[in-house]
């Protein structure tokens, strides 16, 4: 029972801190479940996000249901997704009633300004996490980069390498997103097919 309550409050916390949409959940989730508790490996987390992306529904809610399931089965899912929703209902109802009017007030304005800057930084951080899961094989070894500042030769971990198919797909997606208005569903399914095909050649 306690584990469900813990899960519920963990996701309450994520929900309150999640300024700027579902991608913000990625650094929060990896910090909690991969780095601190170790219930998931980075690889499992990557697969889980892939599933959350291609199944219909909001990515945040999908991820919460899935992480909850891995942590404690059906009731784990329920606790996690309800945890993600509960603060939103409270905050959202009061916001719909009032915040629009307080938008120019100092307290709200300053809070939004600060959290927005932090949100941009954390999404940039989420990009580096994803680089470690797709473009490179293995997490980016920041410690090795630290050696450069001490004017030493960096020692890269053995499993660290570059994935050609990852670069190919990621590059194509960036070009398509900037140049065309293809729906993300098409991009995701196309990438899945391309990944399956390229796994034969590369």
């Amino acid at each position, binding site marked *: 029972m306690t584990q469900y309550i813990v899960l519920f409050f963990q996701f309450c*916390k994520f*929900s309150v*801190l*999640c*300024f*700027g*949409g*579902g991608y913000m959940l990625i650094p*929060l989730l990896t910090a909690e479940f991969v780095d601190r508790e170790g219930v998931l490996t980075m690889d499992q987390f990557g697969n889980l*996000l*892939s599933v959350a*992306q291609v*199944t*219909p*529904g*909001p*990515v*945040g*809610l*999908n991820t919460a*249901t*899935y992480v909850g*399931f891995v942590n404690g089965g059906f009731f784990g*899912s*329920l606790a996690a997704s309800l945890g*993600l929703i509960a*603060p*939103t209902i409270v*905050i*959202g*109802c009061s*916001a719909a009633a009032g*915040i629009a009017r307080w938008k120019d007030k100092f307290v709200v*304005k*300053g*809070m939004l300004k*600060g959290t927005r*800057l932090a*949100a*941009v930084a954390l*999404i940039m*951080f989420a*990009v*580096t996490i994803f680089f470690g899961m*797709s*473009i490179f094989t293995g997490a980016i070894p920041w410690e090795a980069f630290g050696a450069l500042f001490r004017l030493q030769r960096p020692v890269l971990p053995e499993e660290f390498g570059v994935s050609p*198919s*990852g*670069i190919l*797909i*990621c590059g194509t*997606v960036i070009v398509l*997103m900037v140049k065309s208005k293809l*729906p993300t*569903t098409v991009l995701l399914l196309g990438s*899945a097919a391309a*990944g*399956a095909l*390229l*796994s034969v050649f590369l």
Partner: protein
Amino acid sequence: MDDAVTMSTTKRLLLLYCSFFRITALVVGGGLAMLPVIEEIFVVKRKLLTREELLDMTALTQTVPGIIAVNSAVYIGMKVAGVPGALAAVAGAFTPPFTVILIIASLFPRLDPHNRYLLGAFAGIRACVTGMILVTGTRMFRRTVKTRLECAVVLIFFVLAILKVSPALLILAAIPFGWCYVWWQTRRLEQAEKSAGPDAESSSNESESASKDAGEGRS
């Protein structure tokens, strides 16, 4: 507005539940991808919301914490039928992804973990998401970061995140920083106005207020 006035409460709640059920069951990607569907149902077909209210909603759902999809459900539910409406809309948004993911998650361990096509497909999706976040992140950076100081702050937060400072802590630290920053900005603007006088407008002052206006227009 005929429809909006005559509709009974039960009918409204049912409409909210079914609409959001449909939206999250069909729309892949979530968040802002739902917007066109919401517009079609609530603005064009049922006339329960105006276009302006929808625009307000998109701004609000992105500034309030929480995932965008649930925020939108709460906001529209509130507008159409008060707090019960918000609950009905959220319940509708919650049901399909919860069921679908439960089924997938319980099937997942039974899939062959060494099937190369399956692994390849997942690797493909991950690479795609990397590109998508990169593009979204760049757009967000351009929209949010206006001055050199703000850019420096973002970089500091980014480096701290890499150094494994907890993201939760970073967001909480950003709030008092935002207060100081906005206080400092308004004070500097006031001083600039005082020293410049009514008719002497220096070009830097002009661009400052212009960028500030642009920032506020989007918020």
